[in-house]
């Protein structure tokens, strides 16, 4: 019965358990040792799964302190923040234990909520407890003040050999065996993210054929994020053209991802150029469909990758969190919402020899006389349908 998450189960307890981050460990040890009221905070920043949060927990454990965790959503509300934190910062802890405050994933604070950052800075200035802040990307403009108030410690992507060693240790403790080649593959594919590697390892160990893990779902999405980053941020080159080959996702789906995320990166002229590319992609798509001439796919692919990438004047920096396409979901939800309207339109359409879609479009006009009881009777509308019409009438 191993239902526990291995990433939880094998979370490091002491500094000595943290792998592949020797420099960062030294720095945080020193920070904790030297901390006095009014000193700077510490920001641990680096890619996912490199041990930022784990390091904060270990620090607290090592000095027998309590860890007081705040997430980004607590910071969003300065009122709430004050309520939660003021007792923690100003009063002695009830248990007389020391305290460490952890602000996890500070880059989760969105642009509009800059107040959160200001509040955090005020806390750093007034607290008598060390504050540890973690972030994927700390170089955004909104953090410029915060950076001045903190020591920056970068966590590197963990070397794949280190990852592999950790995995082997875990397997030994779990008394499981997985082929060496598969382990190497998992370690490389994790791209420095130890947590992802351990999650993959646990999944692989539960599979009848562990090599299946190399074709899983999550990786698909990780790759689309990487591809988006390369297209939107980087300068287009020949490799841009082949980008989609390495994503295990149909091109229509990729199109939706790009459509959704263009405005997250591009503005003004760039935005217009990028959507003009998409417009052309869409036309080629239709041409392929109509003429069954699949060579057009080359153009669809080139415009969608290189074309969209070339719409910008300068390369982009910083971290952007890309969103999943939402349009299809919205369409689906809407279809459920207008079910009754659709069933009425269907009856009407049959009766007057038009298509259902046309009847739906005519709905705002025809509803004026669809509310007449004679018409409803003639169309044999159900009670629920009549009720729907009466409701929209009010």
């Amino acid at each position, binding site marked *: 019965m191993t239902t526990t998450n291995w990433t939880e189960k094998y979370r490091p307890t002491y500094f000595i358990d943290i792998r592949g981050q020797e420099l960062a460990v030294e720095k945080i040890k020193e920070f904790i040792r030297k901390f006095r009221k009014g000193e700077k905070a510490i920001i641990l920043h680096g890619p996912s799964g490199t041990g930022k949060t784990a390091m904060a927990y270990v620090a607290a454990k090592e000095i027998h302190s309590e860890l007081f965790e705040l997430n980004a959503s607590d910071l969003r509300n300065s009122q709430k923040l004050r309520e939660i934190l003021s007792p923690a910062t100003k009063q002695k802890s009830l248990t007389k234990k020391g305290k460490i405050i952890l602000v996890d994933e500070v880059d989760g604070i969105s642009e509009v909520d800059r107040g959160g950052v200001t509040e955090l800075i005020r806390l750093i200035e007034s607290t008598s407890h060390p504050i540890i802040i973690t972030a994927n990307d700390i170089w955004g403009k909104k953090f410029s003040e915060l950076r001045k108030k903190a020591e920056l410690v970068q966590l590197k992507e963990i070397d794949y050999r280190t990852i592999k060693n950790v995995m082997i240790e875990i397997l030994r403790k779990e008394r499981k065996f997985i082929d060496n080649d598969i382990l190497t593959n998992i370690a490389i594919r994790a791209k420095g993210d130890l947590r992802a590697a351990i999650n993959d390892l646990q999944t692989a160990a539960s599979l009848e054929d562990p090599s299946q893990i190399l074709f899983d779902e999550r990786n698909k999405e990780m790759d689309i994020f990487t591809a988006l980053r390369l297209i939107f941020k980087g300068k287009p080159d020949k490799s841009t053209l082949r980008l989609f080959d390495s994503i295990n996702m149909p091109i229509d789906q990729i199109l939706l991802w790009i459509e959704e995320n263009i*405005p997250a990166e591009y503005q003004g002229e760039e935005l217009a150029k990028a959507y003009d590319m998409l*417009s052309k992609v*869409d036309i080629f798509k239709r041409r392929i*469909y109509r003429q069954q001439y699949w060579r057009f796919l080359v153009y669809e692919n080139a415009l969608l990758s290189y074309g969209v990438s070339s719409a910008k004047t300068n390369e982009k920096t910083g971290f952007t969190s890309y969103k999943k396409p939402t*349009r299809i979901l919205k369409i689906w939800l809407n279809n459920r919402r207008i079910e009754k309207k659709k069933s009425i339109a269907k009856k009407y359409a049959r009766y007057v020899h*038009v*298509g259902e879609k046309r009847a739906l*479009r005519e*709905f705002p006009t025809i509803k004026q006389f669809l509310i007449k009881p004679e018409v409803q009777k003639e169309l044999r509308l159900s009670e629920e349908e009549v009720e729907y019409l009466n409701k929209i009438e009010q």
Partner: protein
Amino acid sequence: MVSEIWTEKYRPSKFPGIVGQDDIIKKIESLTNSLNIPHLLFTGPAGTGKSTLALIIVKELFEKNWKDNYLELNASDERGINVIRDKVKNFARTKSLGNIPFKIIFLDEADALTPEAQQALRRTMENYSATCRFILSCNYSSKIIDPIQSRCAIFRFKLLEKKDIEKVIKKIEEGERLQINPEAIEMLYEGSEGDCRRVINLLQSTASISPVINTELISTIISSAKPKDIRVVLDYALSGDFQKSREKLLDIMLKESISGQDVIKAVQKEIWNLPVEPDIKVKLTEKTGETEFRIVEGSDPFIQLQSLIASFVLAGLGR
């Protein structure tokens, strides 16, 4: 029983009743009199008489038995060509009743079928050609594959002219004892866009409020049926907020079940009311026209519309 829905109540049941398509009627009438028709392809704008003509043909040919010998399908509503094929198969299996040795299948909005589906349709047409005649109807004959076009006699329906629409309005005015002044007739014609169905629906909606019909009443109905808040979409775009603009656009399109072309129509009319320089209005109009063209050529109207609002974002920056 007389229908309470005027598009049905005033649907012509004889050839001379159809307005504005005199040449077509003449040819179709003589084909029908010969008691044999080829496959037919009716192409032309909505509300110009395509379905009505098909109905008259079957009623003339089969008289009392018409309902047993006639199958009406709408390509944009059926789920794929297989469903259509099955329905055709079931219908064609039994022999026609009466003197005419074939049955008639009317396939409306045939241009909604993909080219592959049309290929399959063509085979179906061939398989049942001994027992079935097809009447296909579409808005754009260019969207119908050549092999089908070459198997059909093609009839191109014209947009209805003012005098045709007026004739229809007068007839209903009389039949329903309405009072419609000349300005109101003018406005109804404007609102009809050459579409007979549309003008009758407008008329019935207006008359359901009052039998004395004036321009004020009509414009209330027309504007209540127009896609609302398109201006809001454009204002967001002009102020530089692309995300809000597209969110609102999708919202409107879903809530009001309107097509990309409906949106384009509303945008094109709204451009002249926007607070931008005249040369930019011209630019935007050109872009809107280009977008409409691309919607017809492309596969996903919403992508094309996003490209259009991106141009409005630029216009907001004075470019």
